[in-house]
């Protein structure tokens, strides 16, 4: 009755080994797991999976994993938005942190091999897409053209800016940026201003042999899918990862249901035609 004896609600302990500012109130957390069982759990996670990160004494919250296993260190991009993330942001390097996972399903990285891939990231929604990008770059010749559309409300919220040069210099890879409202420097440089949907129409990627991978606020996911449809993409070509409030990540707490679907256990990665078929809207 008690399964394999592992308590899925027990976090693995780790140490915060590094942080980096990614944007206004957004930080990258680098975690080294300190227990053998924890290292085993995170030995082979996949792009799109998530984990709960604990600030001990405050609580835990779910975040998309933003690293890939070959990096060694486990990374999360976390915006400061509530009690747990406030506490995480105030942790010092060297302090103990809890991690529980990896949880949920992942992007079909094998199924989309040899296809052209369009990645659409909005704000902190870029965090769970970074492992998709880095995993494609790691196996660059196994995938077709990679087009990254990266957006944020303003330039200070664009995440992973120090990796743009690496992404752009990879073969057959392009990066397009936009912000809802540019600052003086942004405007002076004549860079794209407007929503990701406008950028999408401008870049106008071909739907031939292509799939899209989107993460961002629900409203962005919705309108991006409408624009993609206009560009000739079918819902079956679109993949997305959804956010939901959750407290267990293992299909027990009841918090994340959209109709009979559980975002934690049936997702968080869904094909857009399945999202469209949800009894209850994610919007």
């Amino acid at each position, binding site marked *: 009755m008690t399964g394999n004896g592992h308590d899925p609600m027990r976090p693995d302990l780790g140490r915060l080994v590094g942080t980096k500012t990614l944007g206004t109130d957004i930080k990258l957390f680098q975690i080294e797991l300190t227990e053998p069982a924890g290292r085993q759990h995170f030995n082979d996670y996949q792009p799109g999976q998530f984990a709960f990160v604990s600030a001990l004494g405050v609580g835990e919250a779910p975040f998309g994993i933003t690293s890939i296993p070959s990096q060694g260190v486990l990374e999360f991009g976390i915006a400061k938005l509530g009690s747990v993330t406030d506490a995480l942001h105030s942790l010092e390097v060297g302090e103990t942190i809890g991690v529980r996972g990896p949880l949920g399903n992942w992007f079909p990285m094998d199924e989309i091999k040899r296809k052209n891939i369009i990645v659409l990231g909005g704000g902190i929604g870029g965090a769970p897409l970074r492992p998709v990008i880095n995993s494609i770059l790691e196996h660059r010749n196994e995938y077709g053209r990679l087009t990254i559309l990266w957006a944020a409300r303003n330039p200070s919220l664009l995440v992973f800016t120090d990796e743009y040069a690496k992404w752009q210099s990879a073969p057959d890879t392009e990066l397009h940026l936009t912000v809802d409202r540019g600052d003086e420097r942004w405007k002076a440089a004549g860079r794209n201003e407007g929503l990701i949907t406008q950028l999408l129409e401008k870049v106008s990627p071909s739907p031939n042999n292509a799939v899209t991978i989107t993460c961002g606020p629900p409203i962005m996911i919705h309108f991006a899918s409408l624009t993609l449809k206009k560009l000739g993409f079918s819902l079956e070509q679109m993949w997305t990862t959804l956010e939901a409030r959750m407290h267990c990540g293992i299909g027990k*707490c009841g918090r994340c249901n959209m109709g009979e679907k559980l975002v934690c256990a049936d997702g968080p990665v869904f094909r857009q035609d399945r999202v469209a078929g949800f009894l209850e809207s994610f919007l």
Partner: protein
Amino acid sequence: MKVITQEALKAWLDRLAGETALFAPRSVDGIVLYRPVSRSGEIVFDYTRPKMSPKEAIFPSTDNIVSFEKHSQDVTLPEPALEKQQVVFGLRPCDAHGINVLDAVFIGREPVDLSYARRREATTLVGLSCPQMWEGCFCTSMGGAPDDPSHMDVLLTAVVGGYTVNAITEKGKALFAGLELSELTGEPPHPTVGETVPVMPVGQWPKRFTDRYWELLAERCIGCRVCTYVCPTCRCFDVRDQVAERRTNYARYDRLRCWDACTGPNYRVTAGGHNPRPTKGARLRNRFFCKFYYMSQDYGPTGCVGCGRCIEACPVNIDIVEVLHDVSKTSVATEVTA
């Protein structure tokens, strides 16, 4: 069928209370609730339907699921203590069905929830049949019956001078081993049953999702969440940490799992402020769909056992039986039963 006398049962319960934790119907300020008892004299035998289900014996309203101990900078997670054996006495057949639903969620679907499973394994269910269906009861419409032994370890049924003993599982048989029981003379009693409520087949529910009915029904809902509190199958929970102890170079944090309710307004709000279920109607609909559709899709059993507690508890008379009648009407139900 074997019978135990009232006196022998009380003596057995007294002995049991000395050996193991015992939960039983007990009068608390005039209200019968399942509570820990230390002797049979504290137990109420003549009760209808306790206000709360006994789910809290296995799934407590606040449960410490993980602890962290911090000595200077060194953090450890102490191993949980072994669960004490416990007997829940006097649960009603609908409550055993309720525990079966919780089992399906916490144990039946991988991964197994260890803190629930450990407590469940250490628990023996000794039920007591209802002599009749009480006001609001509709267990017979939800696959149960006032004398249904399903999911029990032992089911007792009151007869003249005592109780029949139906020991179903090995765990249950072990509890009654060695007791002197007599043979039942005459017929076992048959409980009186109430009307059958029309329950719309599972597959029909999705068609009613967009009915205006849910918003109309919810106009009077005040989001108090008592329906989920008294429900034997509601299992939604929140998880929070609390500082349990803090002194120089030492701190202990407890991670607490607390009951929560999908009918509360902030239930689905994310840290960014997005609420995909922003109306009362959508939230109330979720509760009914969870009972009659989602649970069966995600875990197997139907999520309602027909105990009627939510009907009795609702301060604005939202009545699950009325809802079942309303949605089973062939026309789209847009009017709320007055």
